[in-house]
């Protein structure tokens, strides 16, 4: 009954963690730097990285944001971010608990039915229970000038041997960092996210594969 599963390409990807150092603010004016929240600054950092990518002439619409903390939804109306993302004034917001990364990627890939490219972002300030601020951004495309890797739609796998699956205590956005790093070094990877809401033996599988 099922049709063949599709995949997409990634035109550019960027991430930010504390290891990178303070978020870069070259894109922001002095007034914007002082007014922006930290969440907005780290999102601005990764979006700025994408903007400066040699293959990216403009940021795509639509913009899909994986929401982990509802306080961050206010960040998404931050005028600093909106100016950078211009002319897209606000993202489609996806919430899915610890499976937010695979679900947001799924929504982004489905949007490629209507658009040539989609901006997908994740970002969260350091708040309990995850005391680590991080952000990631990807541009998904139907076509890309650098098609080294393709992203397959996340699928739910029911198995008891999902070694390496993201644990319940891990930051729900950590998997997005691993995907961005794999993209930027051109290394295929398979990431997993435990889905204990449904079944203790199930996980979402995100495959970043090499082009045949």
């Amino acid at each position, binding site marked *: 009954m099922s049709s063949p*599963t599709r995949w997409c390409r990634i035109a550019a990807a960027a991430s930010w963690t504390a290891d990178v150092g303070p978020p870069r603010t070259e894109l922001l004016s002095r007034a914007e730097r002082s007014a922006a929240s930290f969440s907005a600054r780290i999102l601005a950092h990764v979006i700025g990285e994408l903007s400066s990518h040699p293959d990216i002439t403009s940021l795509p619409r639509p913009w899909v944001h994986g929401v982990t903390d509802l306080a961050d939804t206010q960040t998404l109306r931050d005028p600093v971010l909106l100016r950078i993302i211009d002319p897209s004034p606000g993202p489609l*917001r996806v919430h899915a608990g610890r499976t937010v990364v695979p679900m947001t990627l*799924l929504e982004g890939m489905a949007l490629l039915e*209507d658009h040539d490219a989609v901006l997908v972002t994740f970002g969260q300030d350091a708040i309990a229970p995850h005391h680590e601020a991080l952000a990631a951004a990807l541009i998904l495309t139907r076509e890309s000038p650098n098609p080294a890797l393709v992203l397959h739609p996340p699928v739910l796998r029911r198995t008891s041997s999902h070694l390496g699956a993201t644990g319940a205590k891990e930051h729900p956005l950590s998997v997005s960092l691993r995907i961005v790093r794999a993209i930027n070094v051109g290394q295929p990877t398979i990431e997993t996210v435990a889905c204990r*809401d*449904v079944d203790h033996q199930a996980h979402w599988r995100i495959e970043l594969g090499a082009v045949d």
Partner: protein
Amino acid sequence: MAGFPLTAWALRHPWGDDPDVVFDRLREPSSVVASEPRPEFDRLGELLDALDSDRRRACSRWGSSRVAVVLGMAQAQPTRERLAAVQSMTAERTAVGGAIYQRLGTEAPIAAMASAQRLLRASMADAVLVIGLDDERGSIILLERHGDAFVELCASAEATGTTTQTALDESAVAQVVTSVWSAVGRMPLGAVHTGDPDLDPRADTERRALRDVLGPVHCCSIPGTSRVADVVLAATSLVRGFAPGPDAPEFEHERFLVHGFSSTGQHVALLLRTRA
């Protein structure tokens, strides 16, 4: 563009739980006595129960891994804990093996239908349960790749604009409406569903923007600012052959366009029609 049939739907509304009853009461909304809204999780449980046999049939037909759930959450003040509890309850009660996620925002109950249609078009699912929830109402719709149904969703579109709490971005309205209308060849419409002019000062601008694109089509609205009941009542109106509302004109054309927007700038349009 091929349409996807709405093979089942249900509603939980302060005016009644039968979509036909709510539809009939729209003719005389001033005489309606609304009941106290039930707790959110009670409404969600009742909605899941109402379509339980349809969900089981869909899982049996397509395989559990090909059935997804998209929730459109339009609560005034959602909290992380509430959203997590809704997600968890939905996952446990439906036991589907496909995607389960939530769209957030005022327009989310309609936008969730657009997400579901994209999942079907992209072959990422063969059936999608679309659930809408706000502080008082709830709706559930089963959208499938194929099936016996009188109403189908034949196009959807979303766009971001500069709409705020006080101003409507007319170009964003034109963008989504033109997109869905063009997808089926700009056929005549029976009605267009809009915001409530008694409650939303942007509704008049919305109607003007819609008529600029569509011409003098009949516009109707459902009382209340939430979009949760809109799609179910639009589908019900196609079954009944009348537009919802006090004037309730009979449809000349069996196609119904639903437009929704939020103060965060999101616009969404759906085109429903009766199946040939």
